[in-house]
């Protein structure tokens, strides 16, 4: 195993667990400014921001649920995925030992926690070959609470009057966020994956969390729907932690992929306010962190 690579992945994990991305922190700060000063929602944002500051300063996890480790590795032809998986596992085990991660890999049959975040298909890794000579490693730490409020729709859906069109997607998103309330640690970032099959719609919905907050969609129709939903979901009044307030979601991202004529999946993934994601690019063995 490449010790240097393990060290690079370890640093990526440490940074994701203890330091919130700047765009997310800024979004939380501006959400706080929109709330009446001294009220429960403003105080909640204040507590969140103080916690983020403290975690960064002390180098301890922002949230005790350090989540599932979800890696996306883009690599040039010829890279060994087996070696990379072993290095990721070694880095995850070391980060767990150093209490940067909580042991979060449980055998569903025996109930036994592996104790080091390594298990069957844990960490989750998606490898993609690309034409560039460098390797890009993106990591998301996704908490179980936010994962539990994610949901998938199969359109048409009579219960919410959703047909197979953009309006149907809009209705599915509103329904999903009403059901989530504050349970996934609002205000969340919403990723909506449309098309594909059951599994790829979810995969797409989660990859969207790497988009910077406030970024626009390249597709004008989806961009308009994202902006409309961002406004509408905030009108729901769920607010931080579900206490009520003007910011229920920090942003909405939609991604589309072709579907089978018979299926129309809409996967809605939820990322808690502690939207922990970091990436690094390895060129000639040296890592650049974002």
């Amino acid at each position, binding site marked *: 195993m490449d010790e240097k690579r393990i060290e690079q992945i370890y640093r990526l994990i440490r940074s994701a667990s203890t330091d919130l991305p700047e765009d997310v922190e800024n979004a939380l700060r501006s959400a706080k400014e929109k709330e009446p000063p001294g009220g*429960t929602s403003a*105080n*909640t944002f204040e*507590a*969140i921001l*103080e*916690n983020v500051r*403290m*975690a960064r300063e*002390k180098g*301890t*996890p*922002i*949230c*005790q*649920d*350090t989540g599932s480790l979800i890696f996306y590795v883009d690599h040039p032809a010829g890279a060994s995925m087996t070696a990379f998986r072993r290095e990721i596992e070694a880095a995850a085990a070391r980060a767990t030992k150093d*209490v940067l*991660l*909580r*042991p*979060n890999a*449980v055998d569903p049959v025996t*109930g*036994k*926690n592996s*104790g080091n975040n390594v298990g069957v298909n844990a960490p989750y890794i998606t490898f993609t070959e690309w034409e560039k000579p460098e390797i890009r490693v993106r990591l998301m730490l996704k*908490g*179980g*609470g936010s994962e*539990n409020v994610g949901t998938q729709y199969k359109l048409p859906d009579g219960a*919410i*009057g959703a047909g197979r069109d953009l309006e149907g997607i809009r*209705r599915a998103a*509103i*329904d999903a966020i*009403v059901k989530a*309330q*504050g*349970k*996934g*640690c609002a205000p969340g970032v919403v990723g909506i994956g449309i098309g594909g099959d059951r599994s790829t719609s979810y995969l797409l919905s989660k990859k969207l969390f790497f988009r910077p907050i406030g970024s626009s969609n390249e597709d004008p129709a989806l961009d308009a729907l994202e902006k409309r939903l961002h406004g*509408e979901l905030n*009108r*729901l*009044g*769920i*607010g931080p*932690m*579900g*206490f*009520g307030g003007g910011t229920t979601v920090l942003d909405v991202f939609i991604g589309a992929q072709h579907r089978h004529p018979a299926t129309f999946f809409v996967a809605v993934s939820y990322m*808690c*306010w*502690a939207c922990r994601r970091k990436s690094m690019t390895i060129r000639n063995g040296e890592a650049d962190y974002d």
Partner: protein
Amino acid sequence: MIKLDIPISEEKIRSLKAGDTVLLSGIVVTARDAGHKLMVEERPEFLNDLLKGGVIYHCGPVVRKDGDRWTFVAAGPTTSIREEPYQAKVIESYGVRGVIGKGGMGAKTLEACRKFGACYLHAVGGCGTAIAQSVKEVTAVHKLEEFGTPEAFWVIRVEDFPVIVTMDTHGTSIHDKVEEESKRVAAELMK
């Protein structure tokens, strides 16, 4: 800001109202999924003294061990609704006065709060590092081997642990109110 010492009397807990902010001090026991299942199915006796007038915290902490000593490194609340099938029974059988968690709980728990005198106390989710500062000492841990660190019963001494009462003994749930209003807005949006 109301300061409360644990164990809490029934009279004290009944004086709280949804929306109150409270600083808790005393012994708290963490319990989550495996713990709640055990408390209802096997009712282990070692919890009797800890939970009489006591407080349960839905939390799976990040912990550090130095020698024999445990410390809480990050310790925010986990989502409480998963314990809804068990919570009312646990409140009744152990005489629990407070349940700390996040996201709120359902009708059965709200009714148990009213009937037996308990409040649901909301901590700010995700604030792992900040909340760990209120945990002054880990006095014991139970079922660590069997359940693993996130699900073990950690007995902790807290000082000025900040929470908001979101479900009180008078039948008020802030979560129900917010949900009702959000459903009204959603119906408007989906007309």
